[in-house]
């Protein structure tokens, strides 16, 4: 049986357009030290380090874990490097947890980062490849048709995407680590922002951020010595499907549905909307909130947008989504998935500060990547599973 595992330390950097005050090592270090401090530990207490990030072309460093080993106190320890595209932050946390669940280690430090300002995201995600059409204009160009198809299928009104964009930016005002702090955000401001990839407006899109996130995963024994309350891992799950498969539903991917079903079954959740108190889900473009609400079973197919429309997903709604401000407010790509897991953990530990959801006991962390084909999810709880 897998060993009980908990998150006992959470750390994030201040996410920003350009963290020009630090090197790459300084960036990951800032998150790692905060997570260690939260856990009451130092590098010497850590058994292994697991690093995650998206493509190495963002920073132009091949396998940067080699150079980052010193900054993460990894000398003489096992170190792994995970890369599963946009879901990598979530996948990385799951690999780190797996090492504790397997009974191999007592305390594992996991860190995910992206320093996107070292290059240009549009280039790093899609450099020109011979023989192909240079058409897909960044992630927005790839996902916009799926969003359009969701709107067509569901008949959702135009303001839904704008509403999510405003909600997440208002939530971000309560999160000191968030990249975007836009006190004057409004529906009108979103509506008037440039339509970049119709139907995606500029303010319905995530920013490009420098940032890192770190977690300390611990065994039950190690968690009992932690100074702050642990977030117990009730379930983790991953699912992948091929991008180039004929007949794939990119709007409501089977891998996402299967991953949710797996993680809920392990955690004993039959009615996610009723049983989950708060969810941090990977929403890089605002329309993905209603899309994932359906894929995750919070709403029936075609009606996810209604939870946005009736404010159910607001901070004071019955299922608050992205109380931290989400990916729409901070997007260091490689770290974004881990931030979801970290924020879910903070909620059930009662340590989310100004964006704490009162009485949160069960939280979902969600990440996705590639062409909506890689999914990583975790359920964390205040009580032991």
């Amino acid at each position: 049986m897998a060993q009980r595992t908990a998150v006992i330390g959470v750390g994030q950097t201040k996410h920003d357009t350009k963290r020009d005050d630090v090197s790459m090592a300084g960036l990951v270090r800032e998150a790692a030290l905060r997570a260690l401090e939260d856990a009451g530990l130092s590098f010497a207490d850590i058994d292994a380090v697991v690093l995650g990030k998206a493509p190495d072309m963002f920073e132009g460093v091949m396998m940067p874990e080699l150079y980052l080993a010193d900054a993460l106190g990894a000398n003489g320890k096992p170190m792994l490097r995970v890369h599963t595209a946009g879901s990598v932050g979530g996948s990385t946390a799951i690999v780190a947890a797996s090492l504790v669940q397997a009974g191999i280690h007592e305390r594992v430090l996991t860190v995910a980062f992206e320093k996107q300002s070292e290059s240009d995201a549009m280039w790093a995600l899609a450099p020109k490849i011979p023989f192909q059409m240079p058409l897909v204009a960044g992630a927005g160009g790839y996902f916009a048709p799926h969003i359009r198809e969701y709107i067509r299928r569901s008949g959702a009104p135009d303001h839904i995407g704008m509403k999510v964009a405003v909600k997440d930016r208002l939530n971000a005002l309560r999160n000191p680590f968030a990249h975007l702090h836009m006190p004057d955000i409004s529906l009108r401001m979103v509506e008037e922002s440039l339509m970049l990839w119709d139907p995606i407006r500029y303010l319905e899109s995530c920013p490009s951020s420098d940032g890192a996130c770190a977690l300390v995963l611990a065994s039950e024994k190690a968690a009992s010595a932690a100074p702050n309350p642990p977030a117990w891992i009730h379930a983790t799950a991953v699912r992948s499907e091929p991008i180039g498969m004929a007949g794939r539903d990119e709007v409501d991917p089977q891998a996402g549905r299967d991953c949710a079903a797996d993680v809920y079954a392990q955690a004993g959740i039959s009615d996610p909307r009723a049983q989950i108190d708060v969810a941090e889900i990977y929403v890089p473009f605002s329309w993905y909130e209603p899309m994932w609400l359906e894929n995750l079973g919070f709403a029936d197919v075609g009606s996810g947008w209604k939870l946005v429309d009736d404010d159910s997903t607001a901070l004071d709604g019955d299922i608050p989504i992205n109380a931290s401000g989400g990916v729409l407010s901070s997007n260091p790509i490689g770290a974004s998935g881990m931030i979801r897991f970290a924020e879910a953990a903070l909620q059930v530990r009662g340590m989310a500060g100004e964006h704490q959801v009162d009485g949160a006991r069960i939280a979902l962390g969600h990440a996705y990547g590639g062409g909506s084909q890689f999914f990583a999810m975790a359920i964390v709880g205040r009580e032991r599973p």
Partner: protein
Amino acid sequence: MREVAVVSFAQSPTTVEDARSEVEILQPVLHQAVERSGIAREQIGFTVSGSCDYLAGQPFAFVMGLEAVGAWPPIRESHVEMDGAWALYEAWARLQHGDIDAALVYAFGKSSTGDLPKVMTLQLDPYYLAPLWPDAISVAALQARALLDAGAHTERDMAEVAARSRRDAASNPNAQVSGDTSADALLQEPYVSTPLRAHDCPSAGDGSAAVVLAAGALAREVAERPVWIRGIDHRIEPHALGARDLTTSASTRIAAAAAGASSDKIDLAELYAPFSHQELILRDALGLNGQTAINPSGGALTANPMMVAGLIRIGEAASRIARGEADRGLAHATSGPCLQQNLVCVLEGE
């Protein structure tokens, strides 16, 4: 720990591929590994791969790898931007949870498509080292010179490693380089990057490999002779080349001790030493003596598909044990400049 065994292995020949894409090289190998395992695809509960975007110069190279797996219905899957040996480690850890009994591990890469020694420069410290553009062969040569200067080994020792590797590779249909040669003959060759000669260095090669792991009863059910992973561990050391002792491998020594490698007789060792002098360093670090056959496959000096060669070491050692040619073996993988990161796996036949 839960008993986990290698139950099948497949690899492509290491070549310079003009025609096939990475995924076209991978697909038949995956197919063979699963077929040979005797385990139905649906029974494989976890799939994990190792590859590197910079080899082909495209982000998300691994996404295309998934096309060859048959990942439908969707599968539990992960990917490390590391040699496939570390993917195998992740699979081994996942099998410890007890809820699944079989895992598929694969690795692939076309390192010949770029200027590999230059591409590898991007592994170095991006502030102090990479801007000077020392290539991978030069960096290895600095280590070789330091080893020779330390006095315990000679250029002849390095040539002996290369000659033995080439002779052994003659019986390995997957090797890229082989031949009946001697240290005397090789020492007549010119230097590529002093003190390294061409035979001390690997060629850029393309390839793929896949391993199926199974736990306990399932492994005994499907394999005539399951090859049990008795211990597996990996360690990293500091990056700065000038701040560590390049003539030894502290991380290999720690990993070997943690994997239980020193506790018993080792019949064979497959060491991922892409440069001849690195085999000498690894042999010392592992305390291997004349009892152990080193790299009977010919090793990475004769076939070095980047990201795959470490996984091949595990597969080659396991295959020999499965065939009854040995009982207990050691497989090693490395990553990073001058053996910065090392993995040791101890394998034993039923």
